[in-house]
């Protein structure tokens, strides 16, 4: 067992479920559906046979090929977002049995081990629904622009290698850089709310995801050239001061990004940056 499994009681429960899972069973999928922005939501149920190793995506694939509800009514295939099916692209994020996570790595054996067990699928609530389980997360990428989440290189010409870096520093940055912009941390955050008006994005809470990315680039020798601009962005309205320190974000991050550590580090940096600005009279 990996350390993550050892520490997390929910993970232990899932492991136990996996052991007791019945072969050849059917599971009920309750899916929250919506035909498009502004349209009402409704629930539909599907009976799905579960082969060994099945996950939420393979079951959704089954529903897409056989769109018939438990009541026997023909319906449209459920729409959802997915890509890698290896929990590395972040696309397939949704709320499963009340908790936000990736659907490709949600094994049915872990959640619904017995005949007739129910899986509940809902779209994330902090982003506008496009259709069914698919939401529009452009705001999340926009927030990466807000904090200038890049290294300002001089262009693609051959200018030799990058800075020498200690294995420890690489380790820190690699961890932060594994963030796949899935949005779990934002879904779970009490301070991050649905905002459909793009004009309000720049002044709404930026969330743990972008704060942690700002840290990633401030930690890089060349990335740090834009440090002050990143701190300015985090100092303004919707910046780091909006974080209520509820720490929900770090609990749901599938990549175990040390988000509270990032928030603390950036909080300190913003404070120092503010003091410096004050003394410079800015």
């Amino acid at each position, binding site marked *: 067992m990996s350390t993550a499994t050892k520490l997390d009681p929910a993970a232990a429960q899932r492991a136990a479920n996996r052991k007791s899972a019945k072969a050849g069973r059917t599971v009920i999928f309750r899916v929250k559906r919506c035909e498009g922005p502004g349209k009402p939501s409704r629930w539909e149920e599907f009976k799905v046979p579960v082969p060994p190793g099945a996950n939420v995506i393979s079951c959704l694939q089954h529903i897409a090929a056989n769109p018939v509800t438990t009541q026997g009514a023909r319906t449209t295939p459920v729409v959802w977002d997915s890509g890698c099916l290896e929990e590395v692209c972040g*696309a397939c994020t949704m709320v499963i049995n009340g908790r936000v996570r990736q659907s490709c790595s949600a094994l049915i054996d872990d959640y619904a081990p017995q005949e007739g067990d129910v899986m509940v699928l809902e779209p994330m609530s902090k982003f506008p629904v496009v*259709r069914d389980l698919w939401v529009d997360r452009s705001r999340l990428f926009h927030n990466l622009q807000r904090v200038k989440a890049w290294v300002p290189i001089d262009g693609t010409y051959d200018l030799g290698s990058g800075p020498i870096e200690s294995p420890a520093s690489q380790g820190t940055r690699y961890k932060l850089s594994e963030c796949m912009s899935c949005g779990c941390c934002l879904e779970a955050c009490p301070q991050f709310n649905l905002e459909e008006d793009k004009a309000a994005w720049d002044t709404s809470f930026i969330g743990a995801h972008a704060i942690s990315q700002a840290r990633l680039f401030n930690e890089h020798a060349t990335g740090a050239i834009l440090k002050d601009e990143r701190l300015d962005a985090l100092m303004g309205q919707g910046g780091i001061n909006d974080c209520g320190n509820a720490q929900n974000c770090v609990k749901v991050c599938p990549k175990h990004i040390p988000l509270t550590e990032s928030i603390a580090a950036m909080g300190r940096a913003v404070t120092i940056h503010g003091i410096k600005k004050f003394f410079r009279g800015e």
Partner: protein
Amino acid sequence: MSQHRVIVVGGGLAGLSASVRIAEAGLPVDLFSLVPVKRSHSVCAQGGINACNDVARQQGYSEYEHFDETVYGGDFLADQHPVLEMAMWAPKIIDLLDRMGVPFNRTAEGRRDLRLFGGSLFKRTHFAGATTGQQLLYALDEQTRRFESEGKVTKYEFWEFLGPIVEDGRCVGIVAQDMRTMQIRSFRADAVVMATGGNGLVFGKSTNSVICTGAALARCFRAGAWYGNPEMIQVHPTAIPGADKLRLMSESARGEGGRVWVPRKKGDTRDPKSIPEAERYYFLEERYPKYGNIVPRDIATREIFDICVNEGMGVDGKNQVYLDLTHKDPDYLTRKLEGILDIYEKFVGDDPRFTPMRIFPAVHYSMGGLWTQFVKGSYNPAEPRKKHASGTPAPIDWKVGQGMLHGAPTNMMTNIEGLYAFGEVNFAYHGANRLGANALLSCLFDGLFCGLSVANYVRDGKPGKTPASGMAAQAFDAAAAKEADRMNRLLGTVGKGGDASVNPYAIGKELGDEMTAACTVVRSGPRLAQCLSKVTELRDRYSRAVLSDDASWTNQSFSYSRAVGDMLIAAEAMVKAADLRKESRGAHYRTDFPTRDDSQFMKSTVAKHDPATGAVSVELQEIDHALILPEARTYGKKS
């Protein structure tokens, strides 16, 4: 120049590096992708990226040897000059990625660390944890976002490419569809770069992402672009069997010491850890004492297939063998391979640090792709050289333009003027078999090196005088209208009854099953003939397809159903090319022609589609083999 624009279709490594390079050259870029580019399939790559480096160089390795390995690994099917240029640039590309902030693993002194990968005796693979592709993609995504914030790149994410617009033999734009609103429209461009990746979904389940249908390639093929070496499909030796996907177990597991074995006794059901050394059959090590477990992919795949299918020695009588890391220190494994070991534990439930993994081969990569051209560089020896002896001094040093002429407008241009193909979607570099950790390199090389070719073409070629922005609207409108018709015809079938035989999902599944059975690890003339008639039957059924959703908003199942039609055409090209190639070479293995036949087949297969009749034909075409003499590719196998 202000009226000129370039379209890049695809936001994986190839598309993003092209966008960055072209935008940097001063041309505005419109970037199209099915998914937010940060979620492109390149994110899946785990193992690493190859390049000569200072340590290996002092041990006798060179860019030239990397070139030689790649040509040899590809079983002498790749045009050689482009491979030379790519290998020469590789170290510079790593430097650039390093400057972009890619967290490459470091040595104690803070330099970039290296690992061993298949097909080489030198450590020449750079890596960032076990998610190298993700890390490289993110670095390019970040640079693209920077250009986006400056207004130099405009992203069209969740847009699907439907086809190129070709006027007077020149590509002047594309038709695309917004996957949310379902709006279909044309876009003008002075050059179009296809960077749409691979086509694993033609085989049903593979190691690829769910968007890798290859439909974009097929749409160019239907519009007259040639398809080179379509039969060359790489099957990766080590994947984890799964219900929705065959997840890759990276080659780095073997590179870091993973040993492949089965119990010597057929049907031995003991717990693997209780089977003594002497009763284990480490068949790769015994059959290939020199390379052992790190033989190239096609060889490992065929040997595993042989053990399971021919010899019936698979673990528990199933198609699976052990890939064993349990003899290594668990902390070392966590440090080097955490990402991929977690994937195994996450999806199978066993911890590979303590339990041998069970794996089997899966379709992984397409060496074939859109046929592309190039302008040869300055290195042209009087005679091709013999295969390079590993570790000996290189005959040439690094210099720009020895393999390909830098900036030549036709580099990686398809046979359609102004239509380029970069990355996995082209057929260059990898010949009949791709070496591990060479794909990421070829994607980046295309974008960064050939991006300049695109800029030069737009400036100095026909678009210089007649920009697409000034052309009459008619051709653009007609192209969009044709796609709208295709959509309406398909959507018009919803509710028209029909059984499973005309369900696009069923047709897609049958196609995948048939292609996997007939056109992967082992092929033969009679089996391919049978496969071709199956594909023909499926094409006929597809012409009567009945869809299940006619929504005019975010209609995903329509999009998939449309792609099935394109996949069927690509499949036909693959099967016909596999049939024409009556020899065995690299990934293509024919039981009826088990040896390589250079006199007849050291040639590319080139598939062409006749738009008038819909017929697919395949012919052979000479390749460029002016640099290295072919020799038998044995990797020192003991006979």
